[in-house]
Every structure is written in C-alpha cells, then in structure tokens.
C-alpha cells in the first residue's frame, strides 16, 4: 500500500477506502508529509483537473472532498507538529450574509487547502462585520467571499467598503466568486480577483501570492 493508492481512492470517490489507507500508512510509519504530498494532494489535484475537463461535476467533487478530508484530518495534526509555518498563506473565506449556499465555497476551500493554504472558514450567512473583524484579527493574505444569489451578492461590496472605512483594505487581497458574478462585477465592486470556478479561484490565489511574495 502506497500514497498513490490514496490518490486513486480519492479519484474513485471512495471515502472509506481513503480513510483506511491513510490510517494504515500512518500506522506503518510512513511520513505524514509524504502521505499528504504524494497521496492526498495529487488526488485533489487530479479531481480539480477532472472538474475543469467537465468529467466531474459538483456531486463528484463533494464526494472527492469528503475522501480527501477523511485522510487529511488524520495527517494534519501530525504535519502541523512537524512542519510549523509550512503553509503557503492564510485565506479567510465565507459565504456572504443572507446566503446559505456553501457548496461552491466548500469546493474552493478543499482545493486551496489541498494546495497548501491555511483556511479560516467562516461558513455561510456571514455578517459583514464578521468578515472585517476576522481580517483584523487573523491578518490573512486573502479574503475570499462567495454568493450564489443575485439578492445577496451586493453584500460583498459592503464588506469591501467597510474594509476601506476601517483603513485596512490595502492589507488584504479580496477575491470573489459565485454563480451570478462576473469579472466585470468583481472589478466594479473593487475586488482584486474573481474565480469562475474553484480551479480558477486557486489560480487567482496563486497569482496573487506569487506577485506579493515577500522574500
């Protein structure tokens, strides 16, 4: 049994198998980082590719994410001990107030988390103040907001306006996504980036992080 078997279990959408393999590999003394880097992460990367190619849709990605987290939740505590500060950057994310549709946000979360970002997930129906106070407290590189409804997407602008009002807009990059949004809309409300889907969202995040990397 090897980390590559975890990759296959994720692609096969087999949650129980993914968990079982990770348990066995940890038990047999395989380095948790190797399990993550050579098993779990390639699995979600492949799922991301299949999603982009329209082979996988949302139901498949939800199951793959469940398989990923079944293993990730086992290795994450071990990796954090061994590799402090090894993440690519911190992202605060959530669905705006009034909107409870969080599938898209959850997919972006798993795609980013599996790529090495630390995620602070505020969940769904997140009030404007909560986004702003979390940015102040956590100092993330990126704030990611989503909305599935035309009735709630206006909440994103309120958050950006409040970041401006508090004088902290320049400290964080804001990206937005969700079915009714467009690139034009994102620019119009003053966001720094827009992701049409989870894979594009990750590309936008990577680009921002590369451009602003200090070091």
């Amino acid at each position, binding site marked *: 049994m090897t980390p590559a078997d975890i990759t296959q279990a994720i692609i096969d*959408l087999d949650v129980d198998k993914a968990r079982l393999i990770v348990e066995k590999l940890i038990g047999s003394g395989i380095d948790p980082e190797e399990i993550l880097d050579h098993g779990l992460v390639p699995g979600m990367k492949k799922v991301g590719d299949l999603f982009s190619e*329209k082979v996988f*849709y*949302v*139901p*498949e990605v*939800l*199951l793959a994410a*469940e398989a990923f987290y079944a293993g990730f939740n086992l290795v994450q505590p071990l990796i954090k001990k061994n590799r402090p500060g090894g993440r690519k950057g911190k992202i605060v994310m959530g669905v705006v107030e*009034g909107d*409870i*549709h969080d*599938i898209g946000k*959850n997919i972006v979360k798993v795609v980013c988390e599996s790529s090495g970002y630390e995620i602070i997930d505020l969940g769904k*129906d997140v009030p404007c103040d909560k986004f702003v106070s979390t940015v102040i407290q956590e100092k993330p590189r990126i704030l990611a907001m989503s909305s599935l409804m*035309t*009735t*709630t*997407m*206006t909440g994103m602008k309120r958050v950006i306006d409040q970041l401006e009002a508090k004088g902290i807009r320049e400290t964080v990059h804001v990206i937005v996504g969700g*079915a*009714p*949004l*467009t690139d*034009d*809309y994102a620019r*119009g409300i003053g966001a720094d980036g827009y992701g049409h889907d989870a894979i594009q969202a990750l590309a936008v995040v990577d680009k921002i992080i590369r451009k602003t990397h200090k070091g």
Partner: protein
Amino acid sequence: MDSVTKVINKEKNYAVFPLVCADHCAWLCKTPFKEVVQDGEKLAGVIYQAYQEYAYDMVLIFSDPYVEAQALGCAVEFSPRLKLLGPSSRIVETIAPIKSVRAGRAHASCGIDRTHVILRAAEILKKKAPVPVYVSVKGPFSLAAFIATTDHFLKLLIVAEEKARRFIDVALDFQHKYIARLIELGVGIFIGDPMASSSIISPELFRKFAFEPLRMLVKEIKNGRCYAGIHVCGNSLPIMSMLDDVGADILSVEDISPETRTLKMGGVSTSTIYEGDREKIKHEISRAAGNTRLIISTSCDVPAETDPVNVKAMIQFAREIT
C-alpha cells in the same frame, strides 16, 4: 391575444419580460419582503404595481425558492432575508435515515404551507392583470435537493441512487397536487430547476434524475391546457437538447444561442441589468434579436435593488425592435 401567447403560437416574433420577481417588486414598492411572501394580497399588490411601472408583456409570481420546501416541512426564516434553515426532518427521517444529515433546526415557521399565498396572488392577478399570469414552481429535482439538503442529496445521486429517487418522488408527488391547483386557476406555470443546471450536475445525472420528472410535469400542465415554461440557471448548454425534448412552451436559459424547437426566453444577462448601462443593455438586446422568435428577458431574476432605469431601458429597447 396577448403578445406572449402570440409569440408562443408563432403569430409574433418578440415579447418582453425581464424576470421581475417578488423581491424586486417589494423593493420597488417599499414593502418589506417578509410581509410580501406571507400574504397573497400583498404579493399580488406589489407584482401588479411593478407591472404598472414597467408595462411588460406578462407577470410572474415568484416569491422565493422555498415555498414548496417549507410546505414539505423545511424550516425557513423570513428575516432579514429569506433563508432555508434546514432540511425537512420528517421526510429525511421517513425516507432515508442517513448519518450525515442533521435534523432540521426547530423553528416557529417550520412546515408552514405558503402555497396558499401563491394561489391567492394568482387568483387576484388573473382577474386584474391584462397580461398572462405565470406562476413559478420548483422542479422536482431541485425541490428534492432542498428537502434533503443540497450537498447530501448531490452525494446520494452517486452513492445511493434509490434514496435520491425517493426524495424526488416525494417532491414530484407534491408538485402534481400543487400544479393541479394552479391549472384550475388557468395560469401559466414556470418550472424552475436551478439544481439541475450543468453548472452543478453532469448531463448524465440530469438525464437519469431530472429529465423525466420535468417532462411529466410539463405534460400535465399542457394536458390542463395551460402554458408551461422551464427555467434553468447557469450553464445549460450541455443539456439543451434534453431541455428542448421536455416539451415546454418556453425555455428560459442563460445562453440563448443554440437552435431549439422550444421558444426561448432570455438575452440580457443578470449582471447587465443590475450593473450595466443603457448602451450595454441595448447591445445585448440587439444581439438577442438575431433569434427568429424570442421572449426578451433577463437570464435570471432581476436583483432586488436593480435601478428601475435599467429595467425601463431594457423594455424600451426591446419594444424598439419589436
């Protein structure tokens, strides 16, 4: 005969109706949304006032997506905006005791049947409005997703097909009864199936789970001598031929470019009506007018706080080409 019916019957090429729904009407009339969605007379009142303001070619009674889900036992909160709080616990417990589904949160409004609000509004508008009245209902696939919770339902489609079908059967059974009441009123019926979009599920899953319930409801509506429309949000291109085969009179989709036998409805993107200017609206209408027959509309609901100037511009430009 009215413009929409003429276009359906190939006696005219264009009609116009931006997808103005209850939230925009309530905002326009400065009436609290939560009052509108719980009172048939208020709902009819704001829809009629919006019709008088804009003078489009039909009216649509669409209060919110959760009317039927709430009637089936889902918890819905009305303030500050409408939220679906939890799955229908009684249905989930009966149909599929699945470990990952949590019981719906207890709430005062749990299980209230607001279909009577819609029926009352339909009754009033049918008498009052000089244009055809359509009522929006949920497609059985989307309704099943709401009563089971969406992410759980989507996973069932792959890992427990039979359980997913049982949720759809409950939804279909409810919609048969609801639609029968609407047919008695003689209104047109628009079936909205947002969860069946190719932005969410594959064409294969659409074929397996969403197509047949839609086809059955459309057949029932047409047997009742009413007009039937379908609305699917997001990407519908991969399922366009199946949507065409459902047999509806009107097909409301984001991308109206594919050739279909069914009369299409759309042409102006939601973001354009919300944030665009007159030139952009005019450009999109000119492009849409390349279709031989069309109900010029927005690709999805007109957002609540859309500037009425844009809605009026859309209607004005649409009139110019018709």
